[in-house]
């Protein structure tokens, strides 16, 4: 990133190649798949605009995801759609369910349980479970306090655990 700030085009290519997959996957939660590729380009253009705000002592991924989230929210506001309508949680379900057999049993229940979670809970859970961010990093990305993020992730996990237990008992 420091090389990119110094004007190195190759460094930008490298950052794009390493990170665009995760950014696009994150954007698919907020938009239909066909739009996610265009939104990914928007994100990298905004990353370029914001590149002087990156400081080397801070981790790069939360900084990039904060900008990606901003672009996604702009998109949703422009489209006038509710956030909850757009969330694609397939990767979250895949991460939450262990074995393929369990996935078959629990997928329907998990989808149903996830739909009952608030968008804030689902987003915190996604960033924590799928992207592997710490609570501090999720707080940096979403602008919430660290305490609020911990509570959200805890509540979301509790709810999903209850559904999985229920699903296991039924099977």
């Amino acid at each position: 990133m420091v090389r990119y700030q110094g004007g190195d085009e190759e460094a930008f290519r490298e950052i794009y190649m390493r990170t665009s997959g995760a950014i696009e996957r994150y954007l698919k939660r907020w938009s239909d798949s066909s739009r996610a590729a265009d939104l990914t380009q928007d994100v990298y253009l905004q990353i370029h605009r914001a590149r002087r705000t990156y400081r080397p002592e801070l981790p790069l991924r939360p900084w990039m995801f904060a900008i990606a989230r901003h672009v996604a929210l702009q998109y949703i506001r422009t489209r006038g759609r509710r956030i909850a309508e757009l969330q694609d949680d397939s990767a979250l379900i895949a991460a939450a369910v262990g074995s393929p057999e369990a996935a078959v049993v629990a997928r329907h229940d998990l989808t149903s349980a996830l739909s009952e979670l608030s968008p804030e809970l689902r987003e915190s859970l996604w960033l924590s479970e799928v992207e592997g961010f710490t609570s501090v990093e999720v707080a940096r990305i979403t602008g919430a306090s660290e305490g609020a993020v911990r509570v959200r992730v805890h509540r979301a996990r509790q709810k999903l655990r209850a559904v999985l237990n229920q699903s296991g008992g039924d099977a």
Partner: protein
Amino acid sequence: MTEAGRREVPQALLERIRGDLQPIRPVLRPQTRAVVVALLAVIAAIVLLSIHGARQDLPSLASPMFLGMLAARIAAGSFLIFVALRDAMPAGRAGPAAVSTALAAGVAVLFLLPPVYASILVLDSSRIHVGSGFCYALVLGTAAVPFVIVYWLITRAYPLSPLRAGLLAGLGSGVLAEAAQFVACSNARPAHTMLFHGGGALTVALAGLLGGLALSLRRRREMSF
């Protein structure tokens, strides 16, 4: 894709990046920039006071109470500017508690301190000579220096909530200017201070909000949707 999970940069994106790929320097830490802005605001206030003159009753006001009121204004204004600058850093932005505290502190020094101060101070109306409109204009004039600098710093950074960053920047600049006016104007009547000093600061906050809106609209135009 070159390999699993690695993708080539789309040509259209690369073309847009290439047009603006000159080396840049990362922005300084928000606290460093806030100190610089506060110092420049103090210089602007000193210039104002050297032109306009300090309040006539200043020698009799060098009390801990007066100095405390002044320090509270400077601290609140500087904190607002620090939070505005921090808010303009993606993934380093100020948390909800810091933003709420800063806004509450700004409003408190503008609208809660004047009645407290007036209730303690014995007003000598024969010394009051400053016109209300003049006070309002002086607050705007003094606030212009820190506001222009902070707004420029915000546009150089990347606020994820441009309206909020603009509001914080405007209110912080207004509070610092009101601190200077506190030293310049001898009219301590709450109605005067709240309406013409506080009102001036709120006008700058409104300007910040509009600046944030302009920034938000400009950014929206860059996006593909």
